Structures are given as C-alpha cells and as structure tokens.
C-alpha cells in the first residue's frame, strides 16, 4: 500500500479529529529534566567515590573501638582476678562455652529452617 493508496475519505475524516494541545513548552521542560538527570548522575558518581572513604574510615574506627573495648575488658578481668583468683579462667570458660552454644544454636536454626522448607 503506497501513500497514494490511502483512503482519501477516511483521511479527511480523521483530520477532523482533535489533535490535542500541549500544556507547556515541551523543549524547556524536557531539557530541564535532562540537565537534572545529568546532575544527579554526576552527584551519584561523586558520592560513590566518597563512600569508599567513609567505609574505610568507619572500618578503622570500628577496629579502634574493638581494640579499646578489649583492652578495658582485659584490664577489668585482670583487676578482679587479683581479688578473686581464678575469675579470669571462669570468665574465659563461660565466654568460650557461650560462643560455642550460640554457634550451635545458629546451625540448628538454619538446619531446621531448611528441613521445614522441604
């Protein structure tokens, strides 16, 4: 079907249909959106670069805090151990058995969850 073969009557009828009007200047609206998109992309790239610095700093801080905490914990246990000899061994025993218990509990939860899914 070529252009000349179009139904002229139908074409005339359809040309009478409303064409619709844009409410605003599309060029400026679209270009503003494009610029905003580009700014957003640039900012995202910039923050992604910066986020590595923040992650690095946060990790260093976490290590430092852990170190301070363990230092105070050790000094606290050592000081009590002076008055109550053997406290450090008992504390260590409870800590280790607690950790093992927590670990076994986690394994048990995972296994039972998988069993219930089958």
């Amino acid at each position, binding site marked *: 079907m070529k252009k000349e073969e179009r139904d002229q009557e*139908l074409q005339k*009828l359809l040309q*009478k*249909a409303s064409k619709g009007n*844009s409410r605003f200047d599309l060029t400026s609206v679209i270009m503003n*959106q494009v610029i905003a998109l580009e700014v957003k992309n640039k900012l995202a790239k910039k923050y992604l670069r910066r986020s590595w610095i923040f992650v690095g700093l946060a990790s260093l801080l976490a290590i430092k805090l852990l170190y301070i905490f363990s230092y105070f914990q050790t000094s606290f246990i050592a000081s009590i151990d002076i008055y109550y000899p053997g406290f450090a061994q008992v504390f260590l025993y409870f800590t280790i058995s607690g950790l093992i218990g927590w670990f076994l509990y986690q394994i048990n939860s995972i296994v039972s969850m998988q069993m219930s899914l089958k």
Partner: protein
Amino acid sequence: MDSIYIQKVTAGDINAFEYFVEKYKGKAFSVAFSVVRDSTLADDVVQDAFINAYKKIETFRGDSTFSTWLMRIVVNQGIKVLRKKKVQFERSKEFAYEVIDSNVNESIKSMQAKEQQFYIDKTLKTMTAREASILQLFYLQELSLKEIEEIMELSADHVKVILHRARKQFYGILQKELKHELTSII
C-alpha cells in the same frame, strides 16, 4: 544530520539533545496523542519518552532512522501509560456491522465541524488503542507501512490486517454512534 548530534550527545554534550527535542517534539506529541487520546497524558508520555531516549541513546545502532526509533519509544511509553490506567491495548473485538462507508461519509459530512470532531473523537476513543493508533499513524501521520512495522514491532502482514480491521472498526463504531444519535433525536 541526526547522526552528528547523536555523536555529540554520546560525547557528553547535553545541549545537543535540544536539537532532537525541538525537531521531533511535535511529531512525538501527535503520536503519543494518537495512542492515549488525552493531551495531559500525551505530554507526560512525550517527556518520559525523550528522557528514556536520552538515557538509551548510546544503544541506538542506526538500524532504523532516529525518528522511527524515537517514535517506537513514544508508542511503548504510551502503551505503558494505558496499561497503568488499565486500558487494554490489544483486544479481540469483532464488529459485525454491515458498514457502508459512503453512507457514513455522507451522514458525517452533513454535520457541523464541532459535531464531526465530537463523533470522530468518540469513535477513536471507543476503538481498541492499537487499532486507533495504527489508523492514525497511517492516515494522519502518513507514515509508511514499513515505519509502522518498525514502530509497533509487528510484521508487515500483521500491520495490514490490523489496518484493515481498524478501518472496518472505525466505520462500524461511527455508524453505530450516528444511528444512536439519530434515534435519540427521533
């Protein structure tokens, strides 16, 4: 000319995109309006389509013209909007009317311009969105069948079948609307 500006945009020149917006905004609006039949929605469709085109411009391979590629985005965006509004784009609707084109043409010609516009708009809104879009792309935008195939992502035969069905559907609904008007007056 388009290819030069495509290179500029992909190289990071945002302002070069204004060339495409200025050149195709009118056509994009007409095509969007053909699909959604509402000025407000058509505005939104055009904006979103241009933004999508800007985001995807690097994927434009040049298999078709930029205009066809952009219009495909516009049509897809229009369909997306219709789906959100729960308007079915494709629907198997059969119109078993005995349509006599000349009778419909004569009846509508006797009406005033505003009345004609009212009935034609009503008919296009009643038609299934796909049929109405293809009919308008072919008769109003005067796009070739090949362009419609590429825009609608349909085969040549399929487009011809839909176009034939759309023409029948248009006259069928229009005739029904005019008859309804006539009986309500009587």
